């Protein structure tokens, strides 16, 4: 027991050091390193949120780009059309995505399994067509998000850092809570979980809403980094492709998975940047190969071989209980 304790302290200390090193990166890192950092943190967040649905709740969604798009469009409308601050757009994005997630949960939660998967995709395709024909959002032309040019890169970096680390903390806390237990029991055996008193609908709904709102907030910062928005890109399946890729190569159903996945994804994408077109083919092939060869992803393979877990969501028996006091 003492060993576990000590191990925990070293682990916390290591994580703290990493966070501090990352926090001060803008002071010593090159612009390139900072921009890579921004991408990695934001993609960690996207991956974590997809994993919360697909990896822990059994809700495999191909429609999370809905919320990236909502976040991005909120950022554009709030700053460009209404000339408000970024903070306002974060709040509005959270509000709009909350309401939208709640509304679409009525039809799509009636669907199960693959129906849910495709149902979410249809919603996003419908939104894409709708936005292209909607005057309010400037049809297919979209917006330049000019406020993005005026904020310093280090600020975007710190925003992305907070969102990335926040997503890890949020998922960790959810999984260590009562809801996390409910989620995992639901994923493993829905019927048994329901009989044992897990409220399936409500648990899934909370999980879906949390994931969607956080994805929308990530979307705001993503689009501040991209600086222009169009319906085709905002509601494109490419966002979900990258979420799925990150989670699958990192390890479905692990907290470390999306972190490893995001790092691999962003670096691989940078390497393949000079070969447009072929990069997606290679990414797709890597993902398929990993599903075939390492069904639990890189993290699953590491865990199996070395037994290492950084963020354990398993419950250990408390020492006090063992002593009987």
């Amino acid at each position, binding site marked *: 027991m003492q060993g576990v304790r000590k191990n925990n302290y070293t682990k916390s200390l290591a994580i703290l050091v990493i966070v501090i090193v990352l926090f001060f990166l803008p002071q010593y890192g090159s612009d390139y390193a900072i921009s890579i950092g921004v991408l990695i943190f934001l993609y960690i967040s996207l991956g974590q949120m997809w994993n919360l649905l697909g990896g822990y709740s059994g809700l495999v969604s*191909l429609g999370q780009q809905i919320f990236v798009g909502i976040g991005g469009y909120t950022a554009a409308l709030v700053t460009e059309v209404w000339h408000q601050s970024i903070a306002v757009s974060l709040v509005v994005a959270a509000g709009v995505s909350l309401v939208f997630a709640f509304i679409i949960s009525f039809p799509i939660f*009636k669907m199960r399994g693959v129906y849910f998967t495709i149902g979410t995709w*249809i919603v996003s395709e419908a939104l894409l067509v709708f936005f292209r024909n909607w005057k309010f959002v400037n049809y297919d032309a979209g917006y330049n998000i000019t406020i993005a040019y005026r904020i310093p890169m280090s600020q975007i970096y710190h925003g992305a850092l907070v969102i990335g680390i926040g997503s890890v903390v949020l998922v960790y806390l959810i999984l260590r809570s009562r809801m996390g237990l409910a989620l995992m029991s639901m994923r493993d055996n829905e019927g048994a979980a329901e009989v044992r008193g897990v409220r399936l609908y409500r648990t899934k709904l909370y999980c879906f809403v949390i994931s969607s709102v956080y994805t929308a907030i990530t979307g705001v910062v993503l689009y501040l980094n991209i600086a222009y928005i169009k319906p085709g890109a905002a509601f494109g399946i490419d966002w979900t492709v990258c979420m799925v890729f990150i989670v699958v190569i990192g390890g479905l159903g692990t907290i470390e998975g999306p972190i490893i996945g995001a790092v691999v994804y962003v670096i691989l994408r940078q390497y393949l940047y000079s070969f447009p077109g072929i990069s997606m*083919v290679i990414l797709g092939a890597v*993902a398929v190969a990993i599903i075939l060869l390492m069904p639990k992803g890189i993290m699953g393979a590491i865990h199996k071989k070395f037994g290492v877990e950084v963020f354990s969501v398993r419950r250990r028996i408390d020492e006090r209980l063992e002593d009987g006091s």
Partner: protein
Amino acid sequence: MLETLPQALVTGVLLGGLYAIIGIGMSLIFGIMKLTNIAHGDIMILSTFLTMFITQNLTGNPIIGLLLTIVIMMFFAVGIQKFLINKVITKGAEPALLVTFGLSIIISNALFLAFGANTQTIQSPLVSMNLIRTENVSVSMMYMVSFLVAVAVIVVLTLVMNKTSFGRAIRAASSDTVMSELLGVNTKRMYVFAMMLTVVTASIAGMLVGMTFPFYPTTGTQYLIIAFGVVVIGGMGSLPGTLVGGIILGLAQLVGANFIGPTYQQLIGFIVLLVILAIRPQGLLSKAVRK
């Protein structure tokens, strides 16, 4: 609007035939191996590009182009089924779903690399021909041919499934994997045959789509959703259901577009689909069995 309604009804029904043949492969795969093939639309568009390429560069005749495409696509089907999907099909629904998702990305981007993002068409004299032309209603030859081909394919497939020992073996493999293995049916081999049947229908659908509508490497997604719609409305795994599903979807799109405006044709299709999914998640025609 009312005077254009008969035209919308006629075109809707005929377009439904084309939708049915797009969806039939997806229905087969789902019925037989309980797999939602996310790559279905891209596999179809791949065959469309192949037919176009062979017709333009080698034969000049789209029918011969189609036959060659079918041969190539069958090899492709054996490859993806034997080496990719069969490896994960026993590990639950998600890995197989994600493999087909990966496949879909690979195919559409490979097409983009090979042919560029340009919009393409397969030339056909049928497009400009009209079977019937009156003041209010005209029937396009192309749409009529698509409809008839769809009906023919559905009839042939239903006969194959119900009357031949091959069809019985496939159905046995789908209804009880363990039992049919015990009785000497190689289920994984049956899955390969099912995928080959699927690409044959997808190739036919692909040629018809390529003649009727312009296409480009990323159109696959659009047809995946149509296929999914057809299959959901008609009930997963039911062959005659796909025709009904196609017609309902086609009618919904064109009648809706007739009253609201042509730019909303796609959107109306999506909304009808979502409503049906929400009200009857198991499909309009299938029995209410939920797993």
